[in-house]
């Protein structure tokens, strides 16, 4: 661990964090460090431990062992100081108040705290905040009478109301239709583009791909892959190239792009991240009998990664981690 830069540059740091519910180990020795000023996706299937990780990050849950450091301090202190904004999973908005009243209250809570602790970041004006979250036209509406997409944008506005150093979004798009999703991401991107640090969890690879500088794939409470979207995709076989074998199998795994291979029934099946290069190399070697290239959906590729991840030991990319 680099001692001198940790305090300033790291937004989040998990060191050997474990959390169990009864016999189920939700988070299993998690080590993770996030740098400020980036957008990071916590990607994993349902039950991978994403929400438990976020719960501990926000100080809502206590780890069984290991330490969680948030903005150089404990999660609870960082939250109390108004340095974190959060959009927890599956929350709804309260009734009998308008969006303006609710957001005004939240904003004021941050503004008072920011002033009290003398933090530099200026809490945006209410109008600005609503503008940024694209909810200006909802200001007078009752908060519990919004559509799913509108409610999520209001909840995002709550998360960013205090101009926090870190915004944490736990599966922000779950249950939203494509249009609502797109609108929410526009707003989140706007925030990230202004220099905000965003950590979001999702089980859609596509969302992580589109909106994160760095993707941390977790499965069964452990990090199984970590890197930029390109790093991850390079390690995720997107296509399968198959052909009839004539004679003994050549050394297939050294072919360009090939991640893994299977041989059976006189046919070889190559899982590749770069089918063009693989096919070219095969052509040069003269192995093109009954050649077939099939695409794997991104989601399937992602499943391969998470479920085979434990067996395929080293798919860890160092790229975004340092």
């Amino acid at each position: 661990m680099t001692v001198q830069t940790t305090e300033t540059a790291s937004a989040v740091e998990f060191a050997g964090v474990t959390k169990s519910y009864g016999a189920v180990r939700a988070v299993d020795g998690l080590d993770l460090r996030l740098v400020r000023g980036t957008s990071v996706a916590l990607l994993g299937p349902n039950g991978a431990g994403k929400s438990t990780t976020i719960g501990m990050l926000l100080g809502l849950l206590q780890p069984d062992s290991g330490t969680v450091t948030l903005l150089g301090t404990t999660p609870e202190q960082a939250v109390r100081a108004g340095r974190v904004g959060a959009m927890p999973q599956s929350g709804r908005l309260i009734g009998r108040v308008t969006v303006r009243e609710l957001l005004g209250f939240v904003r004021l809570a941050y503004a008072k705290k920011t002033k009290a602790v003398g933090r530099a970041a200026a809490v945006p004006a209410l109008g600005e905040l609503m503008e940024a979250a694209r909810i200006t036209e909802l200001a007078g509406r009752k908060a519990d009478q919004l559509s799913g997409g509108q409610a999520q944008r209001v909840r995002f506005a709550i998360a960013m109301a205090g101009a926090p150093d870190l915004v944490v979004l736990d599966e922000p798009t779950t249950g939203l239709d494509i249009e609502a999703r797109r609108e929410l991401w526009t707003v989140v991107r706007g925030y990230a583009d202004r220099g905000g640090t965003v950590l979001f969890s999702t089980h859609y690879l596509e969302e992580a791909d589109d909106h994160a500088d760095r993707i941390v794939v977790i499965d069964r409470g452990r990090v199984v892959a970590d890197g930029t979207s390109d790093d991850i995709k390079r390690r995720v076989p997107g296509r399968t190239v198959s052909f009839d074998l004539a004679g003994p199998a050549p050394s297939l795994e050294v072919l360009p792009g090939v991640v893994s291979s299977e041989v059976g029934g006189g046919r070889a099946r190559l899982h590749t991240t770069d089918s063009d290069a693989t096919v070219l190399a095969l052509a040069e070697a003269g192995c093109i009998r009954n050649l077939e290239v099939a695409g794997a959906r991104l989601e399937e590729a992602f499943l391969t990664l998470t479920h085979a991840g434990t067996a395929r030991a080293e798919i860890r990319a160092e790229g975004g981690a340092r």
Partner: protein
Amino acid sequence: MIVHYIRLEMVRLLRDPGYLVMSLISPLTMYLVFNSLDLTGDSGHGGAVYSMVGMAGFGAIGAVMGSGVAIAEDKPIGWIRQLRLLPLRPLEVVVGRALCAMVVTLPPILSVCLAGALVNGVSLGIGQWAAVLALLWVGIAPIAALAIGLGYLLTGQQAQMAGLVCYMGLSLLGGLWVPISKFPGWLEHLATATPINRYGELSWRVTDGDAPSLTGVLVLAAWAALFAAVAVYGYRRSARSA
């Protein structure tokens, strides 16, 4: 900031006026009925004063218990968790919510006292009226803390059950319906340790022309500290699950 939190919760409350109306129907009805039943064994002015304080207090307990249920119902929608993620101190939130719960006690307290003066001929000096009203309101604080603590710790349905048990049980045991002097000795002794008996005693002593007793105030303060600690613990815990 606590002021702004109270304002937000009060706005939510006042836009649901049915709740406020409900909070005064039962104590008001019971006061008018109980007074004619002569449970105090004093059919004169003393009895009317005693049951006026008792029923106002009874209404106040019912009102704060309702606030506990409202809190329990805020949990599944994630509002308590959202509050926990704002830069607010837990004590601030809990005290704010307790004060909101206390505001709801005003309709039953005021209406029962009004009925006492107008219907049952209770006559007290101006100073006594002011003291009784103030003590009935301020003295409910420990029970307000208990109610919201139950709200943070329990589900809506459980809070409703617990609220009902406290509403009826504490009122009866505390002597709000029948003076504890009519209880068997051991029960009378036990009753004096309960917060509700000491709560009623504050006002009964004033209507008898005395000042509240130090012991009574200390017992109430001890309960207040205990229930406030429970409420803060409940608030911090409740954010975990939902």
